[in-house]
């Protein structure tokens, strides 16, 4: 909330704040090839996606206190594509330290690949919101 108040002072007349952050919907891990996908597991987080709920609350508070009004909310899927689960795991260690690849993901992937002989890539899919906020005052 403090950041949102500070940003308000930085906006020129007619300016726009664009806040991009994930929803608190868990990110899904899939085995994909072209348009075909098989669900593997939900990605876990050490704080169970609590920080994204707090971000939502900060935006809601900034609006209720009259700093901004919501011009538009856009939801979209943001995906990370990896050649393998180990590659995704390494990427997450570097870029998403709170993320936990559950042991179930490895077992499930092995089951799918053994039973269906499906080659493919690993996809991590997150639901992201983009809030376009117009400053009041």
């Amino acid at each position, binding site marked *: 909330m403090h*950041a949102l108040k*500070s940003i308000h002072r930085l906006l020129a007349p007619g*300016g*726009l704040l664009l806040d991009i*952050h994930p929803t608190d919907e868990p990110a899904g891990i899939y085995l994909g090839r072209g348009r075909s996908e098989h669900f593997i597991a939900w990605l876990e987080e050490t704080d169970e996606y609590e920080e994204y709920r707090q*971000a939502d609350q900060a935006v809601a508070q900034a609006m209720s206190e009259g700093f901004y009004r919501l011009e538009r909310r856009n939801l979209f899927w943001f995906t*990370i*594509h990896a050649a393998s689960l180990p*590659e995704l795991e390494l990427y997450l260690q570097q870029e998403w330290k709170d993320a936990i690849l559950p042991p179930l993901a490895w077992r499930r992937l092995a089951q799918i690949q053994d039973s269906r002989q499906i080659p493919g890539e690993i996809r991590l899919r997150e639901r992201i919101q*983009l809030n376009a906020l117009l400053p009041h005052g």
Partner: protein
Amino acid sequence: MIRVDPRANETRALRQSAGSFEGLRVLEIGAGDGRLTRRFARQAAHVVALEPDARRYQRRKLPSSWETHVQFLPLSLEDYLKNPLFAGERFDRVLLSWSL
């Protein structure tokens, strides 16, 4: 090889929400290695991109020709606001890039 948002959904959402960045002054908070910055900086008149994480800041990748109008700073928003060099700066677009 890791591919990040290969369908450019984020760029499309940004364009739908914010329209063109042509000729605008833009502040990006939490710019990382410049992944999103590269999507709009070419159009903008001036960009200040803040990234306080030293590891991500070191990995920033922007065309050297953009250095005339893109300022990539290893600062948090709080540090930027405290710095008298930047007092009075105003922006047409402020991007809170996965940073709230």
